[in-house]
């Protein structure tokens, strides 16, 4: 019955309640939307880091990461790959030659990270093939040798286009420097300009022949999982199987992205906490007015036998209902806006260069998990409870004998 009284009390002064409910609704909507923007931005960065750059897990020769020399390879890459693929959490895996190289054209030169890949297998691990526009070539042609896929950023730097020649200088296993010419067959573009500028792809067999690497060996095994959340679990399993090799998750490979992922949850809630903190003062003010207006009524309730706990409960529930009504409306509005922009995206192309330089896409698709809504509900309820403490204390301090004779 006290629940019902509290709920009905909200609507005694509709205008006042609607004003504070609207303030809460807009505040929560802004909080949810800004969290969804941040989440969408970071999610896309993490997804791109995994799908285009590092995959979920990488395996290397334990000395390779200290000094990326071509002779620190994984001996029996093919058999390891077979074992890896048997893990039920693994979606796909590929072996790579990965060495530093010098890319030269008649006009310019640049140091690059060269990936020797098996295109048909690599397609299932990284999505670089999807980042090549139709007019900018293909992700390798079937039979031709010495093809190279580079980024538009590097193409611009080296002043090359499709079908241009690039001479790659690499160190073979015996330490000698070898040159070989490659023809540009595809130009890709991701949202990470630093990655784009540094990365080139050639066929595994072509570069293996050039550096005299046996075809069963590789510098890197990249593993894509069915679920990102399983990265740590699968990495632990693989570490126990391949004790002499270095097994790393994407968070370890790209610590800056890993840190973003670790801090994401915390950062998503900061804005909401600040909004609710500010709204809390508005709620306290409203509830103080409520208590002061109802001194006589509260006095009467205490006189007829409503104990302090019940008076407290009534004020607290009224505050929570007021907050929660605004919070739920705000979340519904926020969810609607997130749903809309989640489909259309928010185009921040005018900041594209800056965003791409730090690895972020210029179109943001806001998204937020259901758990965020649940946690927001909990935070709104907590705000209501905390905001009710002072007004409830005021109510509890009333002397019923004086309160029932008060004229307001």
């Amino acid at each position, binding site marked *: *019955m006290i629940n019902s*009284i509290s709920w*009905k*009390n909200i*609507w*005694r002064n509709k205008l006042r309640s609607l004003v504070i409910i609207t303030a809460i609704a807009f505040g929560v909507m802004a909080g949810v939307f800004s969290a969804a923007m941040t989440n969408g931005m970071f999610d896309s960065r993490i997804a791109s880091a995994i799908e285009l750059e590092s995959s979920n897990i990488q395996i290397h020769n334990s000395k390779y990461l200290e000094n990326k020399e071509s002779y620190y390879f994984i001996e029996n890459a093919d058999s390891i790959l077979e074992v890896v693929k048997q893990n039920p959490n693994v979606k796909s895996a590929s072996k790579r030659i990965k060495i530093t190289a010098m890319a030269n054209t008649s006009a310019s030169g640049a140091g690059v990270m060269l990936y020797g890949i098996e295109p048909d297998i690599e397609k299932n691990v990284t999505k670089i093939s999807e980042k090549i526009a139709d007019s900018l070539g293909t992700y390798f042609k079937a039979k031709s040798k010495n093809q190279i896929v580079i980024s538009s950023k590097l193409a611009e730097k080296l002043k090359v286009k499709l079908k241009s020649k690039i001479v790659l200088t690499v160190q073979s296993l015996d330490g000698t420097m070898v040159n070989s010419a490659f023809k540009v067959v595809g130009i890709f573009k991701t949202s990470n300009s630093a990655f784009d500028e540094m990365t080139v792809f050639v066929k595994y067999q072509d570069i293996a022949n050039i550096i005299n690497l046996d075809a069963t060996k590789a510098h890197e095994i990249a593993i894509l999982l069915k679920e990102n959340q399983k990265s740590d679990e699968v990495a632990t399993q693989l570490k126990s199987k391949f004790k002499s090799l270095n097994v790393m998750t994407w968070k370890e490979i790209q610590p800056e992205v890993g840190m973003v992922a670790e801090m994401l949850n915390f950062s998503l809630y900061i804005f909401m906490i600040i909004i609710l903190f500010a709204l809390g003062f508005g709620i306290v003010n409203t509830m103080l007015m409520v208590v002061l207006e109802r001194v*006589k*009524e509260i006095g*009467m*309730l*205490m*006189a*007829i*036998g*409503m*104990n*302090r706990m*019940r008076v407290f409960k009534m004020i607290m529930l009224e505050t929570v209902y007021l907050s929660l009504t605004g919070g739920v409306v705000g979340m519904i509005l926020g969810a609607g806006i997130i749903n809309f922009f989640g489909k259309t995206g928010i185009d921040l192309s005018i900041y594209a260069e800056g965003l791409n330089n730090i690895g972020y896409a210029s179109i943001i698709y806001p998204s937020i998990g259901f758990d965020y809504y649940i946690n927001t509900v909990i935070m709104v309820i907590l705000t209501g409870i905390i905001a009710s403490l002072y007004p409830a204390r005021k109510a509890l301090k009333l*002397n*019923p*004998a004086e309160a*029932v*004779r008060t004229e307001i």
Partner: protein
Amino acid sequence: MKVIEIKNLHKIYDEKTVPVHAVDGIDLTFEQGEFAAIVGPSGSGKTTLLNMIGGLDKPTSGEIIIADTDIKTLSASKMIDFRMKNIGFVFQSYNLIPVLTAGENVEFIMHLQGKPKEERKARIKEMLEAVGLGDRINSRPNKLSGGQQQRVAVARALASKPKFILADEPTANLDSKSTETLLEIMEKLNREENITFIFSTHDARVMKKARRVITVEDGKVISDERK
């Protein structure tokens, strides 16, 4: 049977600065079934006396014994519980919960007492019929006249089956017709159900109906007449 026994009751406000003897050594006894009015001019101490009998205010000294308990010794929380179980209140202005219907207002006190729903429902009907408002069970207070609201307040006070009902100036805001109706209802309940009513009032119409009139002045009982 004694319902209330008051012994040498004192209430002094501002004891340490300028002491005001609001109640100054009152001894009174109320028996079951009394229909008594405490009267006196403003500032005479009648409301203070009523508040102390109702446990809303603590005496400085003396005893108020209700149901074998000296209520002065009860803690604040026990006093609230005691009031809920033993004392019915009707206040000067209507003091109903505006968001509840007449029926719900009557039910509320029984809800606080933890009475089962079936019992509550039956008693709501019985109480509202007793005050002549059986057909207004679903009306909100703002749809009732002042007199009707006071009758609901009486029904609410009765619903908890108290040992007596304290009514603080219950007719102060009512017109003559409503006052007459309210007094008739309370008198009928007093005669037929033997319910004890104690009023604090200025109203001559209440004094006329009361079978006992206690006059208080300067915190002392100066007359105690029984009709």
